[in-house]
């Protein structure tokens, strides 16, 4: 597997047409009402006799936040082709083709509201997948009134008032405790840490989580968390500031890949010799190219490559992870990241719920999904959880992998249980969440 891509002129042009520009324009010129064209159709393979169920994809597809939506839509495209190609989903004795209808919410709450109304009332989707965050509150309101089932990647959207909103895949940032816990056991001589994060809805709760995880592991934080604005381009001053306290561990929090790379490069250039830990390390091969394999040896993070053999464990529920990874890399070279598989993994969960319910109706699927208090999370069976932290048990929490770079390759060291950590240290977590103003009763 090689993630490096070669791009020639013809490939770029190919990319333009492949990325739907020509196809979309043609549909517009043809004067099609175009609602279907806006979505990802099942490659026209749908049989006339089959029923179709529509799924809404309401995420940013253009603008600065598009990197958190668009690659997920690509993943869903592959998911839909595979599922539809093998006969669709079986619900109540009938087979359904799955069709995604996308609406670009530009990460703006008003467009999210408009999009949700369109998806629910005009496209009649049965489930809406979202990134969440700024765009979530108006959609929650609509979901509460229509009973529409909605998913988010950001569990910090969950409150007691969001009964139809689920966070079934990424229980960000709680899983970050697993990396710190593993690190403290594997390298007990590391005693001090510093942390930096972008000042936003992802960075802050994650800082609270890492602070709790460090405290639980007996690691001392030697400086206040350093926040920077998301428009920052030069990370030399940030790294200089972090290294000024001579910490054993530099924690990059849930910095976006765009920040993890320059921060890591700066740590390398400024001669950092200690341990690094981060939530993500997307495109770590490029980080190695910018630093060295020796420098990145032992870098701890939380997102495995999907060609990792450990994903073929019997308890992993993500369908064909290795094939999905290579198919994705083939179609969208260089676009692979966490969101690439997360939306697709939510679809696996939804499919299981719909097939168990014998219905595609949102409330029935939700009931079936949550039956027994457990669900099939991508990384193994997990429980519906969150009452104490989010005020509602709508986050699916179980194992999460701890990933370490060894000899230039990300390796899953082990799967760790988040509920186990929680049962031991929940008071510490709640304390730090409260200090950061991130508890559900502070987020109203």
């Amino acid at each position, binding site marked *: 597997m090689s993630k490096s891509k070669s791009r020639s002129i013809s490939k770029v042009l190919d990319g333009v047409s492949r990325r739907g520009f020509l196809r979309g324009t043609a549909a517009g010129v043809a004067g*099609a009402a*175009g*609602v279907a*064209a806006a979505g990802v159709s099942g490659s026209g393979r749908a049989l006339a006799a089959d029923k179709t169920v529509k799924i809404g994809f309401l995420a940013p*597809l*253009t603008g600065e936040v598009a990197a958190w939506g668009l690659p997920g839509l690509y993943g869903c495209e592959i998911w839909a082709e595979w599922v539809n190609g093998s006969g669709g989903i079986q619900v109540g004795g009938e087979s359904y083709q799955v069709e995604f209808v996308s*609406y670009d919410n530009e990460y703006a*709450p008003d467009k999210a509201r408009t999009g949700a*109304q369109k998806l629910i009332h005009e496209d009649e989707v049965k489930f809406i997948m979202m990134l969440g965050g700024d765009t979530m509150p108006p959609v929650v*309101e609509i979901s509460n009134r229509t009973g529409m089932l909605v998913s988010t990647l950001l569990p910090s959207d969950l409150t007691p008032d969001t009964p139809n909103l689920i966070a079934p895949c990424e229980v960000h940032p709680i899983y970050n405790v697993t990396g710190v816990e593993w690190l403290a056991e594997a390298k007990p001589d590391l005693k001090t840490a510093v942390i930096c994060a972008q000042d936003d809805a992802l960075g802050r709760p994650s800082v609270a989580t890492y602070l709790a995880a460090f405290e639980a592991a007996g690691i001392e934080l030697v400086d206040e968390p350093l926040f920077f604005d998301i428009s920052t381009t030069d990370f030399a001053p940030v790294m200089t500031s972090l290294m000024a306290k001579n910490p054993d561990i530099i924690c990059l929090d849930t910095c976006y890949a765009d920040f993890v790379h320059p921060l890591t490069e700066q740590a390398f250039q400024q001669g950092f010799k200690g341990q690094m830990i981060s939530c993500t390390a997307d495109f770590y091969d490029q980080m190695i190219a910018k630093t060295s394999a020796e420098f990145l040896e032992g870098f701890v993070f939380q997102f495995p490559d999907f060609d990792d053999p450990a994903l073929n464990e019997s308890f992993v529920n993500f369908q064909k992870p290795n094939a999905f990874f290579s198919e994705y890399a083939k179609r969208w070279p260089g676009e692979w990241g966490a969101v690439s598989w997360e939306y697709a993994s939510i679809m696996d969960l939804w499919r299981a719920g719909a097939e168990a319910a014998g219905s595609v109706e949102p409330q029935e699927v939700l009931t079936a999904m949550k039956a027994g208090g457990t669900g099939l999370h991508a990384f193994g069976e997990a429980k519906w959880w969150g009452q104490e932290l989010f005020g509602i048990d709508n986050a699916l929490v179980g194992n999460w992998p701890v990933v370490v770079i060894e000899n230039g390759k990300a390796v899953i060291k082990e799967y760790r249980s988040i509920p186990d950590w929680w049962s031991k240290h929940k008071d510490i977590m709640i304390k730090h969440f409260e200090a950061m103003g991130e508890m559900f009763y502070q987020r109203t």
Partner: protein
Amino acid sequence: MPKGGEAKPTAALWKPALLLIAVYAGLIVLPHLLSFSQKEIAVFLLINVLLVVSYRVLTLTGEWSLGHAVIMGVGAYASALYAKALGVPVPLAMLLGAATAGLVAYVLSFPLFRMKGFYFLIGSFAAGEVIRLLWKRFRDPFGGPKGIKGIPGLSDIEIGTLKIAFWDPVNYYYVCLLVVTLSLVVLYRLERSRFGLTFHAVHWQDKLAESVGVDTRRTRTLAFVVASVFGGLAGALLAHYLGTINPNRFDVEEMVFVLIWVIVGGTSTFFGPIIGVVVLTIVNEMVLREMGVDQARPLIYGAILIASVLFLPQGLESLGPKIKRLFAGRPDRPDRPDRRQLAGEPSRD
């Protein structure tokens, strides 16, 4: 100072009155002809109409601000906090929010009106960014980067069996239509009043205006405050409909859209910005989305912007130096002939 000059031959009032009635009849029927998502778009469009028309008030004095989106946000944040934290009834909170936006603008006018032209443009941007960063930085009461959630909406009205819920886009559309119409009437009258004429005078002939006793600084401040009050009102309308606001909603990108609507529409007439926002919203939110060109949408939108400015300069002609020269000798007549045609008024010449 010339008089406002509202006296017109009664016969000549027929045409505009009929036109106005026809337009409003259309606007009242409109939401029932639209699809669900188009109803939502119509609500946001009405709010944006108020935003651009209020923005134009400031431009009358010749100053262009990059802070208007943030001022809208001040109205939204203030109104939301009054209603949510202090329990002020929503309609009153909206008015107080608008007043707060005006007050903030008044305070800002002291540093900002030391500057003119491009410096004012960028100065207003900096002031706005400082406000936005304060919202991000002070989580209490502004909620930090995630902003404020759970903003109360207008409470439902029950008259016998008839229940009017303002969460419904159609009902809120009528609320907006009413508020925006009243605001537009006020702004329209204001522009025709003595104050409005001094705005124009300050724009085109500020030295001359000063020499006849117009306090240009005070006039600019007045225009800035009035623009901000109504911009803040637009923000309040938005906040209590959406139920959530955050600092990103009022960032420079949003401001760029306001500028685009206003400039593409043109500012020399009262209706220019309205035409701009209506046409461009329909293009961007309906036509381009229907075409299914999601990723290419900004590209096509950008091309349309360029084409409209290059090939349809009507919206812009009043801004060019040509017009400046055209008006140089006639500070007392800010209107251009086509303005009255657009407004459906008879010519006074």
